[in-house]
């Protein structure tokens, strides 16, 4: 049985703030869903490799579609940059504005 504290711990790991009634609801939901997952205990998987993708053919343990590519930056057009900037919730000049990063103190912020 999953506890309320565990539900709260998972929510913190997932960066989701929950209301009290949500904690209760998810505690109940997770209990029944995790119990349903126990059906997998019946299956013998000795010697079976995990399947990590849906590539339908494999070569050397990788999907057949696998092909590496050089990971290099490319310059976006001004137009595209403008579109992406316009989606930022808070902008300062050409920069994205975010709340202060260190969270041990609540003293000063440049946002909110």
């Amino acid at each position: 049985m999953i506890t309320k504290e565990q539900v709260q711990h998972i929510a913190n790991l997932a960066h989701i703030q929950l209301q009290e009634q949500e904690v209760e609801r998810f505690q109940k939901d997770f209990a029944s869903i995790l119990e349903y997952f126990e059906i997998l205990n019946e299956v013998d998987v000795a010697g079976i490799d995990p399947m990590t993708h849906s590539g339908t053919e494999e070569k050397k343990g990788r999907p057949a579609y696998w092909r590496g590519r050089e990971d290099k930056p490319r310059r976006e057009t001004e137009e595209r940059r403008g579109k992406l900037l316009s989606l930022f919730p808070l902008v300062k000049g050409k920069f994205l504005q975010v709340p202060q990063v260190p969270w041990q103190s609540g003293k000063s912020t440049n946002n909110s």
Partner: protein
Amino acid sequence: MAIREIHEQLINKEVSAIELASRCLDRIEQEEIHAFLSVDRRSALAQAKAVDAAIANKENISILAGIPCSIKDAILVEGMPCTAASKTLEHYVAPYEATCVQKLRAQGAVFLGKTNMDEFGMGASTENSAFGPTRNPIDPSRVPGGSSGGSAAAVAAQESVFALGEDTGGSIRLPAAFCGIVGLKPTYGSVSRSGVISLASSLDQVGPFASSVEDVKLIFETIRGRDANDATTVEYAPAVSFKGNIKNLRVGVPQEYFAEGLDPAVEKAVRDIIGKLEKAGAKIREIRLPHTKYALAVYYIINTSEASANLARYDGMRYGLRVPAKTLEQSYLKNRGEGLGTEVKRRIMLGTYALSAGYYDAYYLKAQKVRRLLKQDFEKAFESVDVILGPTSPVVPFKLGERMTDPLAMYLVDIYTVPVNLAGLPALSVPAGSVDRLPAGQAGLPVGLHLISKPFDEQTLFETGTIIEQIR
């Protein structure tokens, strides 16, 4: 009307693209099923006008030119809103275009708007939309299926000639079945996912909805193919196992798809089709897919695990809902707590749990191993049959609200569709008749027939689906 017939009418000037688009837009304006989250009348009419001009200039136009379509709101159409039916993306406007949409646009298809869905594709009824549910056009007290319910409802209500959806565990096939139309989940890797809002990357695949197998085939052939922007796509090379004479068609009927939980009326509709296929000369073989009963558990572990990683990006920093907070940590917690819906939170948390220290082996790794066993079941079955046949869903369209309090009851609706995504296979849902459950004088509730084939053998699905359209 079939796309081919509309195309003939366009080039013979019996109808204009403007008239076609206006007809759909007017229907959308008057409907009460809430199939669309956004409609762009001006842009649609401008696109249609360009097609009419090309026809007037006696240019050769593509078969899709001037055909009105709609796109699930998880697929980016440049310049149009793209919300994935989530409050957190309420004001997001697509800064670029999905590859599948680019391909349709290049053929001159006319984009009417974006269709409703379960938030981020999480659901089987389209009730999990932050902007309100879509209703089934056949009976508005019932759900259209999900998650691509708006796309299916738009086609069934003749608000759109065809639509694109996205299928992670049944999100195209289930709504197609519930709305009485045709829907295809293509082989994994055949349609680009570039510009598609990810739910579970090893399961997601874009596919078409239309009112006939022929139309679905046409759309699929337009959107498929390798794309440099999606490393999982391949050059589409058909692997056809059946062609032509129905006497050569070997149909596998898995015992496990007619098990406990199946509505007897749905079973009867599907068995009727099997009987007709046999009478027409097809070879019906009973087969076994012994790991089927584990598929739903495997699916929900893998789906939630991948979703928890994919949806980490919705933190309200670069886009999405930003709630004022003092620190970054508090901002994340609030943006996600307020911006995401109940089912989305439930799945992100389940996935976070399944991947967390101490539980990874028991859930995620175990699920991946059983996933391989499920795939091997299919490989073995396809040694002796060309196509596997069963019901798309164990139930008929249910009433709004009926399954919203019990997440497991909602998950069970997907029981026959999820194994296909886990194995990366293609599958088609075609109408198999109807069940009388409505007051006398009204049409019955539709039943969907589910056809599964080998990877890259969509052709066998289309051929079998066309035979079923003729004999049903």
